[in-house]
Protein backbone atom coordinates (compact mmCIF):
# COMPACT_ATOMS: atom_id res chain seq x y z
CA UNK A 1 0.00 0.00 0.00
CA UNK A 2 2.84 2.37 0.60
CA UNK A 3 5.36 3.26 -2.04
CA UNK A 4 8.08 4.00 0.42
CA UNK A 5 7.60 0.75 2.29
CA UNK A 6 7.90 -1.20 -0.89
CA UNK A 7 11.06 0.62 -1.75
CA UNK A 8 12.62 0.15 1.61
CA UNK A 9 11.59 -3.48 1.52
CA UNK A 10 13.70 -3.78 -1.60
CA UNK A 11 14.17 -7.16 -3.19
CA UNK A 12 13.06 -9.12 -0.15
CA UNK A 13 9.66 -7.41 -0.21
CA UNK A 14 7.59 -6.34 2.74
CA UNK A 15 8.46 -8.08 5.95
CA UNK A 16 5.58 -9.62 7.89
CA UNK A 17 4.50 -8.11 11.20
CA UNK A 18 5.85 -11.10 13.07
CA UNK A 19 9.19 -10.82 11.29
CA UNK A 20 9.41 -7.15 12.21
CA UNK A 21 8.70 -7.99 15.84
CA UNK A 22 11.47 -10.56 15.82
CA UNK A 23 13.93 -8.13 14.21
CA UNK A 24 13.06 -5.47 16.75
CA UNK A 25 13.60 -7.84 19.65
CA UNK A 26 16.99 -8.65 18.16
CA UNK A 27 17.92 -4.97 18.29
CA UNK A 28 16.72 -3.50 14.98
CA UNK A 29 14.89 -0.33 15.92
CA UNK A 30 13.94 0.37 12.32
CA UNK A 31 11.77 -2.73 12.43
CA UNK A 32 9.57 -1.24 15.11
CA UNK A 33 9.48 2.08 13.26
CA UNK A 34 8.13 0.18 10.30
CA UNK A 35 5.37 -1.26 12.48
CA UNK A 36 4.56 2.26 13.64
CA UNK A 37 4.24 3.45 10.06
CA UNK A 38 2.16 0.40 9.20
CA UNK A 39 -0.34 0.73 12.04
CA UNK A 40 -0.46 4.43 12.85
CA UNK A 41 -3.56 5.08 10.77
CA UNK A 42 -5.34 2.04 12.23
CA UNK A 43 -4.63 3.06 15.80
CA UNK A 44 -5.55 6.70 15.38
CA UNK A 45 -8.84 5.70 13.78
CA UNK A 46 -9.52 3.25 16.58
CA UNK A 47 -8.79 5.87 19.22
CA UNK A 48 -10.86 8.47 17.39
CA UNK A 49 -13.91 6.23 17.26
CA UNK A 50 -13.54 4.98 20.80
CA UNK A 51 -12.69 8.27 22.48
CA UNK A 52 -14.69 10.55 20.23
CA UNK A 53 -12.25 13.37 19.59
CA UNK A 54 -9.12 13.98 17.61
CA UNK A 55 -6.94 15.45 20.33
CA UNK A 56 -7.36 12.47 22.64
CA UNK A 57 -6.94 10.14 19.68
CA UNK A 58 -3.61 11.69 18.81
CA UNK A 59 -2.37 11.42 22.41
CA UNK A 60 -3.60 7.88 22.83
CA UNK A 61 -1.98 6.85 19.60
CA UNK A 62 1.39 7.75 21.12
CA UNK A 63 0.55 6.00 24.38
CA UNK A 64 -0.45 2.88 22.50
CA UNK A 65 2.82 2.59 20.63
CA UNK A 66 4.87 3.23 23.74
CA UNK A 67 2.85 0.52 25.47
CA UNK A 68 3.32 -1.87 22.56
CA UNK A 69 7.04 -1.22 22.73
CA UNK A 70 7.12 -2.14 26.40
CA UNK A 71 4.90 -5.17 26.01
CA UNK A 72 6.44 -6.53 22.85
CA UNK A 73 8.65 -8.83 24.86
CA UNK A 74 5.51 -10.59 26.10
CA UNK A 75 4.15 -11.19 22.60
CA UNK A 76 4.43 -14.95 22.30
CA UNK A 77 3.41 -15.34 18.72
CA UNK A 78 0.51 -17.64 19.64
CA UNK A 79 -1.94 -15.26 18.03
CA UNK A 80 -1.34 -13.14 14.97
CA UNK A 81 0.49 -9.96 15.80
CA UNK A 82 -2.42 -7.85 14.53
CA UNK A 83 -4.84 -9.65 16.89
CA UNK A 84 -2.51 -8.98 19.79
CA UNK A 85 -2.01 -5.36 18.70
CA UNK A 86 -5.76 -4.73 18.52
CA UNK A 87 -6.24 -6.28 21.93
CA UNK A 88 -3.50 -4.23 23.61
CA UNK A 89 -4.61 -1.06 21.83
CA UNK A 90 -8.29 -1.45 22.70
CA UNK A 91 -7.35 -1.91 26.34
CA UNK A 92 -5.10 1.14 26.24
CA UNK A 93 -7.92 3.21 24.76
CA UNK A 94 -10.22 1.93 27.49
CA UNK A 95 -7.73 2.88 30.20
CA UNK A 96 -7.38 6.30 28.69
CA UNK A 97 -11.14 6.74 28.53
CA UNK A 98 -11.39 5.79 32.20
CA UNK A 99 -8.65 8.22 33.13
CA UNK A 100 -10.36 11.01 31.32
CA UNK A 101 -13.37 10.31 33.54
CA UNK A 102 -15.38 12.01 30.95
CA UNK A 103 -18.84 11.10 29.85
CA UNK A 104 -19.39 12.11 26.34
CA UNK A 105 -22.61 13.90 25.94
CA UNK A 106 -23.89 16.23 23.27
CA UNK A 107 -22.58 19.20 25.22
CA UNK A 108 -19.08 17.77 24.97
CA UNK A 109 -19.54 17.81 21.22
CA UNK A 110 -17.29 14.88 20.49
CA UNK A 111 -17.73 15.65 16.82
CA UNK A 112 -16.62 19.24 17.04
CA UNK A 113 -13.19 18.66 15.62
CA UNK A 114 -14.27 16.50 12.76
CA UNK A 115 -12.46 17.42 9.59
CA UNK A 116 -14.16 19.78 7.18
CA UNK A 117 -17.13 18.45 5.31
CA UNK A 118 -15.42 18.68 1.95
CA UNK A 119 -12.51 16.63 3.14
CA UNK A 120 -14.75 13.98 4.51
CA UNK A 121 -16.75 13.58 1.41
CA UNK A 122 -14.85 12.23 -1.51
CA UNK A 123 -16.68 11.59 -4.74
CA UNK A 124 -19.79 10.01 -3.29
CA UNK A 125 -22.26 10.78 -6.02
CA UNK A 126 -23.98 13.43 -3.93
CA UNK A 127 -24.02 16.72 -5.70
CA UNK A 128 -26.31 19.27 -4.15
CA UNK A 129 -25.03 21.15 -1.11
CA UNK A 130 -28.13 20.00 0.77
CA UNK A 131 -27.36 16.37 0.11
CA UNK A 132 -23.79 16.85 1.24
CA UNK A 133 -24.82 18.71 4.34
CA UNK A 134 -27.36 16.09 5.29
CA UNK A 135 -24.85 13.30 4.87
CA UNK A 136 -22.28 15.18 6.93
CA UNK A 137 -24.86 15.75 9.65
CA UNK A 138 -25.80 12.11 9.73
CA UNK A 139 -22.13 11.23 10.04
CA UNK A 140 -21.88 13.60 12.98
CA UNK A 141 -24.92 12.03 14.58
CA UNK A 142 -23.55 8.52 14.12
CA UNK A 143 -20.13 9.56 15.40
CA UNK A 144 -21.65 11.14 18.48
CA UNK A 145 -23.99 8.23 19.06
CA UNK A 146 -21.07 5.80 18.94
CA UNK A 147 -19.13 8.03 21.33
CA UNK A 148 -21.97 7.73 23.85
CA UNK A 149 -22.14 3.94 23.72
CA UNK A 150 -20.71 1.91 26.60
CA UNK A 151 -17.13 0.96 25.84
CA UNK A 152 -17.92 -2.74 25.28
CA UNK A 153 -20.36 -1.80 22.56
CA UNK A 154 -18.01 0.67 20.91
CA UNK A 155 -15.39 -2.05 20.63
CA UNK A 156 -17.59 -4.43 18.69
CA UNK A 157 -18.94 -1.68 16.46
CA UNK A 158 -15.40 -0.53 15.72
CA UNK A 159 -14.08 -4.00 15.04
CA UNK A 160 -17.02 -5.43 13.14
CA UNK A 161 -18.88 -2.60 11.46
CA UNK A 162 -15.99 -0.22 10.86
CA UNK A 163 -12.93 -2.44 10.58
CA UNK A 164 -14.68 -5.36 8.88
CA UNK A 165 -13.53 -8.16 11.16
CA UNK A 166 -15.90 -11.13 11.21
CA UNK A 167 -17.58 -12.54 14.33
CA UNK A 168 -14.86 -15.08 14.94
CA UNK A 169 -12.05 -12.56 14.63
CA UNK A 170 -13.83 -10.10 16.92
CA UNK A 171 -14.25 -12.91 19.44
CA UNK A 172 -10.53 -13.69 19.25
CA UNK A 173 -9.42 -10.09 19.63
CA UNK A 174 -11.71 -9.41 22.57
CA UNK A 175 -11.32 -12.90 24.00
CA UNK A 176 -15.07 -13.36 24.33
CA UNK A 177 -17.49 -15.95 22.98
CA UNK A 178 -19.21 -15.78 19.59
CA UNK A 179 -22.54 -15.45 21.36
CA UNK A 180 -21.30 -12.45 23.30
CA UNK A 181 -20.07 -10.82 20.09
CA UNK A 182 -23.49 -11.27 18.53
CA UNK A 183 -25.44 -9.99 21.51
CA UNK A 184 -23.18 -6.96 22.00
CA UNK A 185 -23.42 -6.09 18.33
CA UNK A 186 -27.17 -6.42 18.44
CA UNK A 187 -27.54 -4.18 21.47
CA UNK A 188 -25.10 -1.60 20.15
CA UNK A 189 -26.76 -1.43 16.77
CA UNK A 190 -30.22 -1.23 18.27
CA UNK A 191 -29.15 1.80 20.28
CA UNK A 192 -27.55 3.45 17.29
CA UNK A 193 -30.61 2.77 15.15
CA UNK A 194 -32.81 4.33 17.81
CA UNK A 195 -30.72 7.49 17.95
CA UNK A 196 -30.64 7.80 14.19
CA UNK A 197 -34.38 7.34 14.06
CA UNK A 198 -34.84 10.10 16.66
CA UNK A 199 -32.62 12.39 14.63
CA UNK A 200 -34.64 11.73 11.50
CA UNK A 201 -37.85 12.40 13.44
CA UNK A 202 -36.49 15.79 14.44
CA UNK A 203 -35.86 16.66 10.82
CA UNK A 204 -39.44 15.98 9.84
Amino acid sequence: MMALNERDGGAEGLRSDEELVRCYLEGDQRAFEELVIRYETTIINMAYRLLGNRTDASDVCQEVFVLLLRKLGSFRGEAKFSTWLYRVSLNACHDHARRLKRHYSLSDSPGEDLPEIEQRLPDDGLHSPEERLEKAEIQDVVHEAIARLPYKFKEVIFLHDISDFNYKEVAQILDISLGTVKSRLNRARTRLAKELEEYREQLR
Partner: protein
Amino acid sequence: MGIEMKCGKATKLIEPFIDGELDSERSEQLQAHLISCSACESRVSAMRATLDSIASLPAIEPTARESYRLMNRVRAEMDEPRPARIGHARLRLTAAAAVTILVAASIGTTWVVLSGGGTVTKVEVAQEEQEPVSFKGPVETSAGINGKTASQLLASSVTSPSVTISGKDYAASELKSYRNDLGARLDFYASYWYPAAASGFDAATLANNQATLTTAIADQAAQAGKNPDEVKNAVSVALSQCDQTIPLLPCYAEQAKVGGKDAWLISMSGPEDYLLFKNQELPSAMFLASQGGGASLMISQSLLTQLASMFAPVYGGSNLTLSMSADANTDALDDSAPLSIAQTWLASDQQQQFQTFLRQLAAQSNNVDLIAALEGLNYDQLLMLLQGNWNGLAAQGIDLTKFLVPPKRLYAIDATTGNVIW
Protein backbone atom coordinates in the same frame (compact mmCIF):
# COMPACT_ATOMS: atom_id res chain seq x y z
CA MET B 1 -37.15 -26.31 2.68
CA GLY B 2 -38.14 -26.91 6.25
CA ILE B 3 -41.16 -25.61 8.04
CA GLU B 4 -42.12 -22.00 7.60
CA MET B 5 -40.21 -19.55 9.75
CA LYS B 6 -41.93 -17.38 12.35
CA CYS B 7 -41.16 -13.67 12.85
CA GLY B 8 -39.57 -14.27 16.25
CA LYS B 9 -36.94 -16.57 14.83
CA ALA B 10 -36.51 -14.51 11.68
CA THR B 11 -35.72 -11.39 13.71
CA LYS B 12 -32.87 -13.18 15.44
CA LEU B 13 -31.36 -14.20 12.13
CA ILE B 14 -31.53 -10.82 10.45
CA GLU B 15 -28.19 -9.53 11.72
CA PRO B 16 -26.14 -12.67 11.06
CA PHE B 17 -27.80 -12.73 7.64
CA ILE B 18 -26.76 -9.17 6.80
CA ASP B 19 -23.32 -9.79 8.30
CA GLY B 20 -22.84 -12.78 6.01
CA GLU B 21 -22.53 -15.16 8.94
CA LEU B 22 -25.59 -17.31 8.30
CA ASP B 23 -25.31 -20.75 6.73
CA SER B 24 -26.99 -21.18 3.36
CA GLU B 25 -29.90 -23.29 4.60
CA ARG B 26 -31.04 -20.76 7.16
CA SER B 27 -30.35 -17.92 4.75
CA GLU B 28 -32.77 -19.42 2.29
CA GLN B 29 -35.39 -19.96 4.99
CA LEU B 30 -35.07 -16.36 6.06
CA GLN B 31 -35.26 -15.04 2.53
CA ALA B 32 -38.41 -17.07 1.95
CA HIS B 33 -39.90 -15.57 5.08
CA LEU B 34 -38.97 -12.03 4.01
CA ILE B 35 -40.88 -12.37 0.75
CA SER B 36 -44.12 -12.95 2.63
CA CYS B 37 -43.49 -10.74 5.68
CA SER B 38 -43.27 -7.00 5.10
CA ALA B 39 -42.62 -6.29 8.80
CA CYS B 40 -39.43 -8.39 8.80
CA GLU B 41 -38.50 -7.03 5.38
CA SER B 42 -38.59 -3.49 6.76
CA ARG B 43 -36.51 -4.61 9.77
CA VAL B 44 -33.85 -5.76 7.33
CA SER B 45 -33.95 -2.43 5.48
CA ALA B 46 -33.71 -0.47 8.71
CA MET B 47 -30.73 -2.53 9.91
CA ARG B 48 -29.03 -2.12 6.54
CA ALA B 49 -29.54 1.64 6.71
CA THR B 50 -28.02 1.78 10.17
CA LEU B 51 -25.01 -0.26 9.10
CA ASP B 52 -24.60 1.88 5.99
CA SER B 53 -24.52 4.97 8.18
CA ILE B 54 -21.82 3.44 10.33
CA ALA B 55 -19.84 2.26 7.33
CA SER B 56 -20.02 5.71 5.76
CA LEU B 57 -18.05 7.25 8.60
CA PRO B 58 -14.89 8.65 7.03
CA ALA B 59 -11.54 7.26 8.09
CA ILE B 60 -9.14 9.85 9.41
CA GLU B 61 -5.54 10.22 8.36
CA PRO B 62 -2.82 11.23 10.78
CA THR B 63 -1.28 14.57 9.87
CA ALA B 64 2.42 14.89 9.10
CA ARG B 65 2.88 16.64 12.41
CA GLU B 66 1.17 13.82 14.32
CA SER B 67 3.35 11.25 12.59
CA TYR B 68 6.42 13.28 13.37
CA ARG B 69 5.48 13.58 17.05
CA LEU B 70 4.65 9.91 17.26
CA MET B 71 7.92 8.78 15.72
CA ASN B 72 9.91 11.09 17.96
CA ARG B 73 8.15 9.73 21.02
CA VAL B 74 8.69 6.14 19.95
CA ARG B 75 12.38 6.78 19.24
CA ALA B 76 12.84 8.46 22.60
CA GLU B 77 11.23 5.43 24.22
CA MET B 78 13.45 3.03 22.28
CA ASP B 79 16.52 4.97 23.37
CA GLU B 80 15.71 4.33 27.01
CA PRO B 81 18.06 1.76 28.58
CA ARG B 82 17.03 -1.67 27.45
CA PRO B 83 17.71 -5.26 28.42
CA ALA B 84 21.19 -6.59 27.70
CA ARG B 85 20.35 -8.69 24.68
CA ILE B 86 19.45 -5.58 22.75
CA GLY B 87 22.51 -3.75 23.89
CA HIS B 88 24.59 -6.51 22.36
CA ALA B 89 23.77 -5.67 18.75
CA ARG B 90 24.28 -2.03 19.55
CA LEU B 91 27.74 -2.59 20.90
CA ARG B 92 28.94 -4.06 17.66
CA LEU B 93 27.70 -1.08 15.70
CA THR B 94 29.22 1.33 18.13
CA ALA B 95 32.54 -0.43 17.88
CA ALA B 96 32.47 -0.16 14.10
CA ALA B 97 31.66 3.51 14.33
CA ALA B 98 34.45 4.02 16.84
CA VAL B 99 36.96 2.63 14.36
CA THR B 100 35.77 5.17 11.84
CA ILE B 101 36.17 7.93 14.38
CA LEU B 102 39.70 6.82 15.16
CA VAL B 103 40.52 6.95 11.48
CA ALA B 104 38.96 10.37 11.31
CA ALA B 105 41.10 11.56 14.16
CA SER B 106 44.34 10.19 12.78
CA ILE B 107 44.23 11.36 9.19
CA GLY B 108 45.37 14.80 8.17
CA THR B 109 43.65 17.97 9.09
CA THR B 110 43.51 21.01 6.93
CA TRP B 111 42.76 24.41 8.14
CA VAL B 112 42.96 27.99 7.14
CA VAL B 113 44.30 30.80 9.19
CA LEU B 114 43.22 34.26 8.22
CA SER B 115 45.68 36.62 9.76
CA GLY B 116 44.70 40.06 10.98
CA GLY B 117 45.73 41.72 7.72
CA GLY B 118 43.41 39.51 5.75
CA THR B 119 46.05 37.39 4.04
CA VAL B 120 45.13 33.77 3.85
CA THR B 121 47.59 31.27 5.13
CA LYS B 122 46.83 27.65 4.54
CA VAL B 123 48.31 25.41 7.15
CA GLU B 124 48.28 21.72 6.55
CA VAL B 125 48.81 19.47 9.48
CA ALA B 126 49.73 15.83 9.58
CA GLN B 127 48.89 14.90 6.03
CA GLU B 128 49.36 11.20 5.84
CA GLU B 129 48.78 8.70 3.09
CA GLN B 130 47.07 10.00 0.00
CA GLU B 131 45.88 13.52 -0.51
CA PRO B 132 42.32 13.68 0.71
CA VAL B 133 40.00 14.79 -2.02
CA SER B 134 38.10 16.63 0.58
CA PHE B 135 37.29 20.23 1.02
CA LYS B 136 40.28 22.32 1.88
CA GLY B 137 38.95 25.00 4.12
CA PRO B 138 35.97 26.99 5.16
CA VAL B 139 36.13 29.53 2.36
CA GLU B 140 35.97 27.23 -0.62
CA THR B 141 33.09 27.95 -2.95
CA SER B 142 32.72 25.09 -5.37
CA ALA B 143 32.73 21.46 -4.45
CA GLY B 144 33.88 19.36 -7.39
CA ILE B 145 34.78 15.80 -6.70
CA ASN B 146 37.19 15.26 -9.57
CA GLY B 147 35.28 12.46 -11.15
CA LYS B 148 35.61 10.21 -8.13
CA THR B 149 32.76 7.89 -7.36
CA ALA B 150 31.03 8.16 -4.07
CA SER B 151 32.57 4.91 -2.85
CA GLN B 152 36.07 6.17 -3.68
CA LEU B 153 35.21 9.33 -1.86
CA LEU B 154 33.99 7.39 1.10
CA ALA B 155 37.12 5.32 1.15
CA SER B 156 39.53 8.19 0.77
CA SER B 157 38.07 11.27 2.34
CA VAL B 158 37.82 11.84 6.01
CA THR B 159 37.33 15.41 7.01
CA SER B 160 38.21 17.05 10.24
CA PRO B 161 36.44 20.05 11.57
CA SER B 162 37.84 23.39 10.57
CA VAL B 163 39.20 26.13 12.75
CA THR B 164 39.65 29.65 11.45
CA ILE B 165 41.42 32.44 13.25
CA SER B 166 39.91 35.46 11.55
CA GLY B 167 39.82 38.02 14.34
CA LYS B 168 37.20 39.75 12.25
CA ASP B 169 34.68 41.90 14.07
CA TYR B 170 31.19 40.84 13.02
CA ALA B 171 28.06 42.86 13.50
CA ALA B 172 25.01 40.85 14.55
CA SER B 173 23.43 41.55 11.17
CA GLU B 174 26.40 39.97 9.45
CA LEU B 175 26.07 36.84 11.54
CA LYS B 176 22.55 36.42 10.30
CA SER B 177 23.73 35.82 6.76
CA TYR B 178 27.03 34.23 7.72
CA ARG B 179 27.29 30.59 7.16
CA ASN B 180 29.82 27.89 6.94
CA ASP B 181 28.66 24.78 5.25
CA LEU B 182 31.43 22.41 6.03
CA GLY B 183 29.05 20.30 8.06
CA ALA B 184 26.74 19.95 5.11
CA ARG B 185 29.53 18.88 2.82
CA LEU B 186 29.80 15.54 1.23
CA ASP B 187 33.05 14.61 2.90
CA PHE B 188 31.83 15.58 6.33
CA TYR B 189 28.79 13.41 5.84
CA ALA B 190 30.96 10.56 4.73
CA SER B 191 33.18 10.90 7.77
CA TYR B 192 30.62 11.44 10.47
CA TRP B 193 26.99 11.15 9.51
CA TYR B 194 27.33 7.99 7.53
CA PRO B 195 28.71 6.03 10.48
CA ALA B 196 26.30 7.78 12.84
CA ALA B 197 23.38 6.72 10.68
CA ALA B 198 24.77 3.19 10.49
CA SER B 199 24.56 3.05 14.26
CA GLY B 200 20.98 4.26 14.17
CA PHE B 201 22.01 7.59 15.69
CA ASP B 202 22.87 5.72 18.79
CA ALA B 203 23.45 8.21 21.61
CA ALA B 204 26.85 6.81 22.61
CA THR B 205 28.18 7.05 19.05
CA LEU B 206 26.90 10.57 18.79
CA ALA B 207 28.52 11.56 22.08
CA ASN B 208 31.77 9.99 20.88
CA ASN B 209 31.57 11.91 17.63
CA GLN B 210 30.91 15.14 19.46
CA ALA B 211 33.84 14.54 21.81
CA THR B 212 36.20 13.62 18.97
CA LEU B 213 35.29 16.69 16.96
CA THR B 214 35.52 18.97 19.97
CA THR B 215 38.99 17.64 20.74
CA ALA B 216 40.04 18.06 17.10
CA ILE B 217 38.83 21.66 17.15
CA ALA B 218 40.67 22.34 20.41
CA ASP B 219 43.86 20.77 19.04
CA GLN B 220 43.73 22.94 15.95
CA ALA B 221 43.12 26.04 18.04
CA ALA B 222 46.12 25.13 20.21
CA GLN B 223 48.32 24.74 17.14
CA ALA B 224 47.23 28.18 16.04
CA GLY B 225 48.33 29.52 19.42
CA LYS B 226 44.88 29.85 20.95
CA ASN B 227 43.67 28.58 24.27
CA PRO B 228 42.20 25.12 23.59
CA ASP B 229 40.06 25.14 26.74
CA GLU B 230 38.42 28.36 25.64
CA VAL B 231 37.22 26.92 22.34
CA LYS B 232 36.33 23.62 24.00
CA ASN B 233 34.11 25.49 26.39
CA ALA B 234 32.59 27.49 23.54
CA VAL B 235 31.73 24.28 21.70
CA SER B 236 30.09 22.75 24.73
CA VAL B 237 28.07 25.92 25.39
CA ALA B 238 26.97 25.92 21.75
CA LEU B 239 26.00 22.25 21.99
CA SER B 240 23.93 22.97 25.07
CA GLN B 241 22.07 25.65 23.13
CA CYS B 242 21.00 23.23 20.45
CA ASP B 243 17.78 21.35 20.15
CA GLN B 244 18.66 18.22 22.10
CA THR B 245 16.30 16.06 20.10
CA ILE B 246 18.38 16.47 16.95
CA PRO B 247 21.81 14.88 16.73
CA LEU B 248 24.35 17.62 16.01
CA LEU B 249 28.08 17.73 15.51
CA PRO B 250 30.42 20.70 15.85
CA CYS B 251 32.05 21.19 12.46
CA TYR B 252 33.59 24.66 12.43
CA ALA B 253 35.04 27.15 14.85
CA GLU B 254 36.17 30.66 14.10
CA GLN B 255 38.05 32.93 16.44
CA ALA B 256 36.57 36.37 15.84
CA LYS B 257 34.86 39.29 17.50
CA VAL B 258 31.21 40.16 17.76
CA GLY B 259 30.47 43.78 18.51
CA GLY B 260 34.07 44.25 19.66
CA LYS B 261 34.05 41.29 22.08
CA ASP B 262 36.35 38.35 21.57
CA ALA B 263 34.22 35.44 20.52
CA TRP B 264 34.22 31.98 19.09
CA LEU B 265 31.79 31.30 16.26
CA ILE B 266 30.75 27.69 16.40
CA SER B 267 28.90 25.99 13.59
CA MET B 268 26.96 22.75 14.01
CA SER B 269 26.27 20.13 11.42
CA GLY B 270 22.93 18.32 11.53
CA PRO B 271 21.73 15.29 9.63
CA GLU B 272 19.13 17.18 7.63
CA ASP B 273 20.12 15.28 4.61
CA TYR B 274 19.48 11.98 6.27
CA LEU B 275 17.78 10.85 3.10
CA LEU B 276 20.93 11.64 1.22
CA PHE B 277 23.15 9.28 3.01
CA LYS B 278 20.74 6.76 4.43
CA ASN B 279 20.96 4.61 1.36
CA GLN B 280 24.51 3.52 0.64
CA GLU B 281 23.42 2.17 -2.71
CA LEU B 282 22.84 5.62 -4.05
CA PRO B 283 26.24 7.05 -4.91
CA SER B 284 24.58 9.29 -7.47
CA ALA B 285 22.75 11.04 -4.66
CA MET B 286 26.11 11.75 -3.10
CA PHE B 287 27.33 13.06 -6.41
CA LEU B 288 24.30 15.25 -6.70
CA ALA B 289 24.96 16.68 -3.28
CA SER B 290 28.51 17.47 -4.24
CA GLN B 291 27.23 19.49 -7.19
CA GLY B 292 25.40 21.79 -4.85
CA GLY B 293 28.50 23.93 -4.41
CA GLY B 294 28.54 25.74 -1.13
CA ALA B 295 25.17 24.34 -0.20
CA SER B 296 23.98 20.81 -0.08
CA LEU B 297 20.84 19.52 -1.65
CA MET B 298 18.29 18.91 0.95
CA ILE B 299 16.08 17.18 -1.51
CA SER B 300 18.20 14.22 -2.31
CA GLN B 301 18.02 12.27 -5.45
CA SER B 302 16.49 9.31 -3.68
CA LEU B 303 13.67 11.53 -2.54
CA LEU B 304 13.25 13.00 -6.00
CA THR B 305 13.19 9.55 -7.48
CA GLN B 306 10.48 8.52 -5.08
CA LEU B 307 8.43 11.59 -5.82
CA ALA B 308 8.89 11.13 -9.52
CA SER B 309 7.94 7.48 -9.45
CA MET B 310 4.74 8.37 -7.68
CA PHE B 311 3.72 11.30 -9.80
CA ALA B 312 5.43 10.89 -13.10
CA PRO B 313 5.47 7.62 -15.00
CA VAL B 314 8.78 8.17 -16.74
CA TYR B 315 11.72 9.40 -14.82
CA GLY B 316 15.03 9.65 -16.57
CA GLY B 317 18.28 9.02 -14.87
CA SER B 318 20.51 10.87 -12.54
CA ASN B 319 20.56 14.27 -14.20
CA LEU B 320 17.02 14.99 -13.10
CA THR B 321 15.50 15.10 -16.54
CA LEU B 322 11.94 14.06 -16.45
CA SER B 323 9.25 13.31 -18.95
CA MET B 324 5.74 13.77 -17.85
CA SER B 325 2.96 11.72 -19.35
CA ALA B 326 0.31 13.65 -21.20
CA ASP B 327 -2.52 12.48 -18.98
CA ALA B 328 -1.33 14.40 -15.95
CA ASN B 329 -4.08 16.76 -15.06
CA THR B 330 -2.66 20.20 -15.64
CA ASP B 331 -6.07 21.61 -16.46
CA ALA B 332 -6.95 21.72 -12.82
CA LEU B 333 -4.39 24.43 -12.27
CA ASP B 334 -5.64 27.87 -11.51
CA ASP B 335 -3.09 30.57 -12.13
CA SER B 336 -4.58 33.00 -9.69
CA ALA B 337 -4.46 31.00 -6.50
CA PRO B 338 -1.66 29.11 -4.80
CA LEU B 339 -2.99 25.58 -5.02
CA SER B 340 -1.40 22.79 -3.15
CA ILE B 341 -0.63 19.50 -4.79
CA ALA B 342 -2.92 17.42 -2.70
CA GLN B 343 -5.92 19.67 -3.04
CA THR B 344 -5.92 20.20 -6.74
CA TRP B 345 -4.61 17.81 -9.26
CA LEU B 346 -4.32 14.50 -7.50
CA ALA B 347 -7.06 11.91 -7.59
CA SER B 348 -8.21 11.00 -4.10
CA ASP B 349 -6.20 7.79 -3.94
CA GLN B 350 -3.11 9.70 -5.07
CA GLN B 351 -3.80 12.37 -2.48
CA GLN B 352 -3.79 9.69 0.13
CA GLN B 353 -0.60 8.26 -1.30
CA PHE B 354 0.99 11.68 -1.24
CA GLN B 355 -0.07 12.26 2.35
CA THR B 356 1.28 8.86 3.30
CA PHE B 357 4.52 9.69 1.56
CA LEU B 358 4.78 12.96 3.47
CA ARG B 359 4.05 11.24 6.76
CA GLN B 360 6.74 8.69 6.16
CA LEU B 361 9.09 11.41 5.10
CA ALA B 362 8.29 13.29 8.28
CA ALA B 363 8.97 10.19 10.29
CA GLN B 364 12.23 9.50 8.52
CA SER B 365 13.68 12.91 7.99
CA ASN B 366 12.63 14.56 11.23
CA ASN B 367 12.05 17.71 9.29
CA VAL B 368 8.68 19.36 9.61
CA ASP B 369 9.70 22.40 7.57
CA LEU B 370 10.57 20.26 4.60
CA ILE B 371 7.23 18.49 4.79
CA ALA B 372 5.38 21.79 4.97
CA ALA B 373 7.39 23.11 2.04
CA LEU B 374 6.51 20.07 -0.05
CA GLU B 375 2.86 20.23 0.94
CA GLY B 376 2.72 23.84 -0.16
CA LEU B 377 3.92 23.25 -3.72
CA ASN B 378 1.51 23.24 -6.61
CA TYR B 379 1.71 20.92 -9.56
CA ASP B 380 3.93 23.14 -11.69
CA GLN B 381 6.27 23.72 -8.81
CA LEU B 382 6.52 20.04 -8.02
CA LEU B 383 7.53 19.46 -11.62
CA MET B 384 10.21 22.10 -11.31
CA LEU B 385 11.44 20.47 -8.16
CA LEU B 386 11.60 17.10 -9.86
CA GLN B 387 13.50 18.68 -12.72
CA GLY B 388 15.88 20.46 -10.41
CA ASN B 389 14.68 23.75 -11.87
CA TRP B 390 15.69 25.91 -8.93
CA ASN B 391 15.56 29.15 -10.91
CA GLY B 392 11.99 28.44 -11.93
CA LEU B 393 11.03 27.78 -8.34
CA ALA B 394 12.76 30.94 -7.18
CA ALA B 395 10.93 32.94 -9.86
CA GLN B 396 7.66 31.72 -8.34
CA GLY B 397 8.66 33.05 -4.98
CA ILE B 398 9.42 29.66 -3.45
CA ASP B 399 11.87 29.84 -0.58
CA LEU B 400 14.59 27.58 -1.87
CA THR B 401 16.39 27.46 1.43
CA LYS B 402 13.70 25.04 2.57
CA PHE B 403 14.89 22.60 -0.05
CA LEU B 404 18.48 23.48 -0.67
CA VAL B 405 20.24 24.30 2.49
CA PRO B 406 20.13 22.80 5.93
CA PRO B 407 19.20 25.15 8.74
CA LYS B 408 22.08 27.32 9.81
CA ARG B 409 23.33 26.58 13.27
CA LEU B 410 25.87 29.21 14.10
CA TYR B 411 26.55 30.27 17.66
CA ALA B 412 28.70 33.14 18.86
CA ILE B 413 30.13 32.43 22.30
CA ASP B 414 31.94 35.09 24.33
CA ALA B 415 35.53 33.85 24.55
CA THR B 416 36.15 35.02 28.09
CA THR B 417 32.80 34.62 29.85
CA GLY B 418 31.44 31.69 27.85
CA ASN B 419 28.12 33.53 27.47
CA VAL B 420 26.06 33.11 24.36
CA ILE B 421 26.25 36.33 22.36
CA TRP B 422 24.28 35.17 19.37
